[in-house]
Each structure stands twice: as C-alpha cells, then as structure tokens.
C-alpha cells in the first residue's frame, strides 16, 4: 500500500449537528490526529457521497465516516477497494443520550477518536485465492433427500457426485408403500413415485452416481475437498451435502412394549407389509384389528429423548391404508400426545372421519396374546385392549450421522489430550444481576458406527454433534450448516422429518453448498460475515505452538503441520476471530481486524480523572446481536449512561484478554462483554465464540485480584437481537455497580 491518506467526513444531519458541537469534533480530528475533516449536512446524500468520491479520485485511500451506525447506509459508504471506517454519532450517541449535554459531546468525540485511532491499523483486505477451485458438489446418500439435492445442484449448473452406500438409489422410500400427503387437501396417503425421481436423477448428465461406495477419507477445504471413496478413487469436490437419512430405532430395546412377541412389529416392518399387499396376522388371516403404539422408544429418557415428528403421521397413514382396504377393520392409535405438525392435522381429521380410535394413555404392557394394557387417560381407567391381530410400534428416527458398517473411531480421547476440551460444559462467568445456573451438559451420543467422512481435520474425523447424533449448528439462523464449513446436512440426518420436508431441506442445503463453492473461489467468507475477504494470518516467527487456535476454532479451520505449527485453511474459516482472541502472543490478525486494532480504540478514549466524578465503562459488544440491539435501542430513543463506550467486535470469541487488561490499566472502571448466549442452547453465530469468551473470563478473576482489582469490574452479559428495551437497564445497572465499587485505582497512571 502506498502512503496512507485518510479522509475524515463528519455528518451533521439527522440532528447530529444540533445535539453535539460539530466544531469540537472537527477539532479532535484536526488537533489530535492532524487530519482535516469535512462536515456535510447530509453525508449519505448524493452530494455528500460525491464529495467523498472526488477526494478518493484525488488520492484519498482510506475513509473515516462519522455519521450513523455502521449497520446502515453501508451501500452509500462503500468505496471498495478503499476501506471505510465508521464512527457512530447517531444511534448509540445522540439518539440514546440527551442533546446539548457535555457528556453526550464527550461520547461523540470518543466515538470519532476510536475510528481515527484505528484507521492506521487496518487496510482493505486482500483475499486468499490460490490454485484451482472445484465447483462440483458431492452428495452423500441416494435416498429421497440425496436425490433431490443432486437434482437441485445439477439444475443450478453444478456437476454432482452422488455417493450411495447400497447398490441401488431410492433409499428407504423404495420399501415404503404410499407416502404422506404433500399436496392439498393433504388428507390422504399419496402415491410413492420414487422410481420417477430415481429415473430423473439417472438421466441427468451432470450427475455421476457411485453405487456401493462410501467415503474413506476427506481432506482439504471448501473449494478444494479431496474425497477418497471406498474403491480407492479420489474425487475433487467443492462442497459436500450430507443426506444420509435415518435408521429406525433399535426395536430390540423395546421389550417392555412387547417387541419379540409374534404379531408385534415396528412401523418400518408394517410399512413393508403394506407395500407387499394386505398385512397378514400370525394366524395367516388378513389383519382386522391393529393397535399403533406411538412414541415407542421416543421422548423417553431411556431411549430417544426427542420426538421424531413423523411417526404420528405415519401411523395415521398406515391406519388409513388399512381402512381403505377394509373399512370394517379396527384401528386404534395409542398415544400420549399426538403430534401432527403443519398440514398433517388434515390427515388426523381424515383418520378420525374414517373411524380410527384414538386412545390417550401410557401403554403398560403387551401380553403374549397381544392384549395391550393401557392406562386410558380419557375414560380414566386401566383398559385391556383385547382381540388384536397386530401391534405396531411407532419407533423413531436415529440420524445416520455415522456409517453403521464402519469401525468407530476414538474421538477426542488422544486427539485432544492435554488441550482445552472444546465440548466441555460452559461455566457462567461474571454476570450483572441474577446469574443463570450453568446448563447441564447434554448427551453427545453419536449413533454406533464410524465417521461418515473421516475428516482429516485436526479436531477429529466426525462432524461435531450437538446431541443425540445431530450435527451442531446455529440451527435457527443457519439451519443447514455444520461446524465444518462447506459441509451441509439436510433431511432426517439433520433433524427428523418427512419426505416433503426433506425435499425442501435438500434444496436449502444445496443452495448453501453452491454459495460455499462460489464464495471459496472468490476468497470470500460465508455466513454470518458474508463477503468478508479477510482471513487469519499467523506470524509463525512468534508462534509458541501452544495450539490454542487449532483447538478453539469453532470450525476446525486451523490444522497443524508436521512441525506442529498452526496452518490455516482459509476457505474453512468463518472470520470470527476466535483464534485471534485465543492467541496468547497476539500473532494472529486479519488485514482489517486485529488485537492492536481493538486495543488502539480502547486507548483512544479520553479517561476523565476521578475528581470529575465521571467513570468510564467499556462495553465490548458483539456485532451480530448486541450492537444491532443497541442500535435498535437508540432508534427507540432508549437511553443509557453516557459514561459508556461501546466497542463493536466480530464475536466475543475474538476478544483477547489483553483487551480487558489494557482497558483496566488505562483507567476504565469496568468492562462489560456483551454477546450472544453461550451454553448448550447457545445463540452465538460462531457457535463457540461467546462460550470461549466466558471460559476465558472465568480465569480472569485471579489475574484481577493479583492487580488488586475487584473481579466484579469485568462481566459478561447475554444479549439477543430483541433486547433493545432490556440492555439500557443492564448497562445502567452495571454502571451503578461499578460506582458502588469505586473508581479504578489505575486511573491517571
């Protein structure tokens, strides 16, 4: 980069000019930073933007805009490849603090100082683009989900490698009779056209099908995955869609519901009987009287703790099929809570109309003569259900997140020996007000079998699991993601779902995969920092091989080379900066983000001496939820203490403890980390970032004590996007708490 020439632009519009003295702001730039600012009454208007463009044409190569929040007018103040820094004077300053007040003016000045001080520390990022990128998408699993995913990817113009473990396409749908309704009026079982889908996929020239194949190892990164198949061939793919579906819960464990008694079958076995023709009882006669036992091994802490969401509708469908063949048949559905999500309610109505009898109550046992004992909750008595020909156990879905035929791999034990356990339950660190109890660690059980992809990642061969074998993801905002960038799950392996849902799920995951291969080739980040071209750069000459970055990266982006130095796989990276926050020697940085970039801003704030009676509180706020919530609070004109300075960060995971110790040593009286909720029901957009921050903060107390500082000066609070009304109170509560403790004794040193 040639000589840095920074243009400073102040906006006096939106009431900024009336609320704070613009001359003082101009003075800050002029005297403290030796930069000549330009003030405009409407900087985002054509005239203002043209003014900036003219300066850029005349040689300005970095722009500082002090106007509204960095979250608005991003398109107006985008002058790529010139980097724009934003200082917020509006949402978090004049809209949330009284006009004309000296504290508000000081806040505005500090906001400008932070941006001006940070400007020399950053540059417009140069993306990492190296070698060839594959645009091909691998789809694992040739069932309904996989077939739809393959077809969708091909329709979007991508070559597809469809890998199926068995020797035929179609998956479990091949063994099913009719399918659940998916068209209005959603009230009857519909024809199973799986053959048509298989034929369409087979006829598509972009799709290469590999039957009888499994993946033995997967190396590389998005855009550059090398997938080794069981026949030894190696395929280059850009992204991977996992559509391996489900396996039925092991009915062998359901002896208490009579499994093992002749005539007691699972819903999967009954489905096959329906496909083969009229189901026959043990006597050889057609089935006349059937009881469907719902939640067989589901929503049961001893078995599957979750609801598979489709077993109820499946039993309704099977009962309707039976009644269609023989309207005089007796069908009983024994349920505890019948769950018919969405349009499946119509199927429930249809089943009622057809005469299916629904009995609410717990099944207490099944006799050898197929008498089912139910604690009938509706007639409030224990009822024996006699004269049945068949009992169908509606078992749930277990995700195929492992390959049942492959040998299990020791996961974690020696791979992570001596390291920080990335799966450990997160302690709740400092908290303003009532601290919630630490969540209990949930079962992380992976279904029996070996890893699906056998990832050659430092963090192990499996996709990280949230619980019960389902892949970990921020499933509200990014449903298809896994914690391995470029690898997406869809269909029942992601969560239990039916055929129609799996079709939509396949489309969603494929769109993410397409985005992944295209972003990888452009050197750009994926969600939530879509378009970010920066990537972590590690100064290996300072690296102490402590391996914290390789262990703590939520996405396994950093491997270790032969010499145990960290090795970044840039397209796996999501740019959260958790590695940067982890690095004890601060040698990990991004072109446009670094520890120095943060500490410079912290130090740029003017700290008043204790005789002024004014504290300074630093709020390090996550850009994903906390900053938007504070902006929203400003928009709603909610007010909070003007003694607070907000420092936006990519993720709390990127906050180095150095930021906190620097803040306290320059005289801030308190530091609040404001970010997404950590823990098992986390809201962190980078999965582990806020949890890592909490983990680090739990160790900061001792350090503070050794500095003769009160540990209560540093807290972490949860913020969600909807907290605009709550956060001002939280901040003010913290300020009050700090005032109770007293001023920081390091002030003025």
């Amino acid at each position, binding site marked *: 980069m040639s000589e840095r020439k920074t243009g400073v632009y102040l906006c006096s519009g939106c009431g900024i000019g009336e609320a704070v003295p613009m001359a003082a702001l101009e003075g800050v730039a002029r005297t403290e930073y030796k930069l000549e600012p330009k003030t405009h009454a409407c900087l985002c208007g054509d005239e203002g933007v043209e003014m900036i463009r003219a300066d850029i044409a005349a040689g300005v190569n970095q722009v500082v805009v002090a106007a509204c929040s960095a979250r608005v007018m991003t398109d107006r103040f985008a002058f790529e490849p010139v980097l724009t820094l934003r200082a917020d004077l509006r949402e978090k300053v004049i809209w949330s603090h009284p006009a004309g007040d000296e504290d508000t003016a000081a806040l505005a000045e500090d906001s400008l100082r932070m941006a001006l001080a940070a400007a020399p520390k950053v540059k417009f990022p140069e993306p990492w683009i190296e070698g060839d990128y594959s645009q091909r998408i691998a789809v694992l699993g040739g069932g309904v989900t996989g077939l739809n995913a393959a077809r969708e990817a091909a329709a979007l113009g991508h070559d597809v490698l469809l890998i199926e473990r068995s020797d035929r396409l179609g998956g479990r749908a091949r063994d099913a009779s009719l399918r659940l309704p998916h068209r209005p009026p959603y009230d009857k079982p519909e024809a199973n056209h799986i053959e048509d889908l298989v034929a369409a996929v087979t006829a598509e020239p972009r799709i290469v099908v590999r039957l009888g194949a499994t993946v033995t190892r997967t190396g590389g990164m998005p855009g550059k995955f090398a997938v080794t198949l069981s026949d030894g061939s190696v395929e280059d793919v850009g992204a991977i869609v996992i559509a391996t579906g489900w396996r039925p819960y092991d009915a062998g464990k359901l002896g208490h519901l009579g499994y093992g008694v002749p005539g007691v079958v699972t819903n999967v076995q009954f489905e096959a009987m329906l496909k083969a023709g009229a189901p026959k009882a043990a006597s050889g006669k057609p089935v006349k009287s059937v009881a469907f036992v719902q939640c067989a091994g589901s929503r049961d802490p001893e078995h599957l703790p979750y609801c598979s969401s489709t077993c109820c509708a499946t039993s309704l469908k099977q009962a309707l099929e039976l009644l269609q063949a023989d309207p005089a048949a*007796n069908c*009983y559905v024994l349920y505890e809570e019948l769950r018919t999500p969405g349009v499946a309610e119509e199927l429930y*109505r249809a089943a*009622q*109309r057809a*005469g299916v*009898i*629904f*009995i*609410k109550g717990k099944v207490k046992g099944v006799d050898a003569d197929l008498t089912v004992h139910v604690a*009938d909750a*509706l*007639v*409030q008595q224990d*009822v*024996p*259900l*006699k*004269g049945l020909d068949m009992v169908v156990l509606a078992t749930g879905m277990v995700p195929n997140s492992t390959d049942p035929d492959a040998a299990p791999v020791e996961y974690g034990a020696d791979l992570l020996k001596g390291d920080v356990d990335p799966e450990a339950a997160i302690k709740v660190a400092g908290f303003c007000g009532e601290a919630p109890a630490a969540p209990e660690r949930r079962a992380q059980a992976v279904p029996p079998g070996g890893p699906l992809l056998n990832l050659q990642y430092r963090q192990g061969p499996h996709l990280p699991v949230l619980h019960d074998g389902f892949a970990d993801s921020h499933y509200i905002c990014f449903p298809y993601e896994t914690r391995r960038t470029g690898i997406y799950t869809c269909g029942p392996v992601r969560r239990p779902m039916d055929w129609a849902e799996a079709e939509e799920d396949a489309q969603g995951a494929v769109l993410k995969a397409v985005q992944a291969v295209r972003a990888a080739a452009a050197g750009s980040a994926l969600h939530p920092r879509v378009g970010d071209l920066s990537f972590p750069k590690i100064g290996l000459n300072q690296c102490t091989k402590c391996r914290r970055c390789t262990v703590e990266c939520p996405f396994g982006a950093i491997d270790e080379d032969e010499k145990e130095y960290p090795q970044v796989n840039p397209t796996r990276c999501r740019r959260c900066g958790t590695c940067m926050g982890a690095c004890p020697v601060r040698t990990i940085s991004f072109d446009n983000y670094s520890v120095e970039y943060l500490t410079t801003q912290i130090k740029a704030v003017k700290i008043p001496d204790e005789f002024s009676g004014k504290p300074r509180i630093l709020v390090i706020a996550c850009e994903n939820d906390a900053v938007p919530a504070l902006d929203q609070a400003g928009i709603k004109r909610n007010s909070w203490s003007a003694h607070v300075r907000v420092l936006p960060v990519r993720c709390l995971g990127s906050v180095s403890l150095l930021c906190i110790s620097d803040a306290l040593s320059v005289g801030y009286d308190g530091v609040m980390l404001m970010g997404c909720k950590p823990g098992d029901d986390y809201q962190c957009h980078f999965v582990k970032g806020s949890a890592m921050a909490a983990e680090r903060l739990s160790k900061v107390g001792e350090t503070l004590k050794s500095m003769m500082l009160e540990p209560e000066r540093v807290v972490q609070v949860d913020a969600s996007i909807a907290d605009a009304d709550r956060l001002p109170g939280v901040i003010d509560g913290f300020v009050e708490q700090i005032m109770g403790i007293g001023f920081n004794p390091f002030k003025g040193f």
Partner: protein
Amino acid sequence: MSHVPTPTQTYDLSFARWVYGHVDGGDRLALCMQCGTCSGSCPLGPQMDFGPRKLFMMIRAGLKDQVLGSNTIWNCVSCYNCVVRCPRQVPVKHILQSLATVAVREGYPGARETDNARFAKAFWWSAAKYGRTDERLVTAKFYFSYGLSKGYRKSMANLAIAKGMVKARRMHLGLPHKCKNAGELKLILARAAEIEARHGDAS
C-alpha cells in the same frame, strides 16, 4: 329403531359404530378430538356423573351401560354452549337428547328415575294430549310421579308460587287450553313416530 349392540369388551366398536350411524348428530361424533370444551362450557357440568367429553370417549370404549345409565344425558338443558363452542362442530346437545331417547327405549332405570326424565315425561304427556303445556297438569303429573305423599309435599311447598302466578295472571284456574284440531296433532305425532322408526333402521 334397530337393535342396540352390547359390546363384549372395552373398545369393542360395535356400540360406537351404532351410535355414529343411528343417533341424531352421531355422524360427527367420530370427529370429537376430546378437547373438553363441551364439558368446560356446560353450566350443568357439576351435576353430571361425567361431562359430554368423557361420555363420548366412553361410547368409543363401548361402555354402553355406563353411558345410557348416566344422568349426563338427562341433565342437558339445551343451552347450546357446547354446540356453539365445539371446534369440530359436534352437535353435543342433539346427541345427548337422542341418547336419552335410546335410554328410554332400552329401559335404563336412569331414564325413569331422574328429575329431568320425570319432568320430560310429564311435559310430553301434556304437549301430546292438548297440543299445549298446562302448568298445573305438568307440575302435578311431575310431582305425583314420585308417589302420593311425596307429590303432596312437593305441591304444598310450591303453593305460594302457584298463588302468586294466579294473582299475576300467569296461571289460570279453568279447564286446560287445547290447541285447535287436536285430532290432526295426533296424526302428526303418529307420522313423526313412524319417520323416526324408519330413520333409525335406514341408517
């Protein structure tokens, strides 16, 4: 009306299916989802052996004797709260009254002994005979259905009310009023009975 089947075990569906097919409104009974809105809405609920919700489930469970012997079917006052509120449009009131008729036919003791059953009988006697209800005759018939001494006591207990009604010209002391053409009324009722019998058999 066809023969009412008697189930041999719980959830023998013969009785439920007969009710679905033969009772007024029974065709919608299959759609009852046991939400309990009817029982929760019923002003007479506390006086019933059990509410309509449970009654309907007992029909499915084949508990014929408990259903037809219950006072639930006699305590309905036709306020229509349940009918208006039922999310599945089950005509609860119609079903209860129709079941009461079945209970009378099948000779269930509750059908003769409850207050409501006795009153309904007295009311019908007057209406069918005169085409009108006469307060004195209906109450007398109702009170004395409990026997002579009990009927006398009940009559005396309500004497003050009767006097007040006469004074307010709400009850007259002459011969009972009759509708015109009582003979035609008889024909109408005979025809209705004929239709009812046929209706029961046809469905």
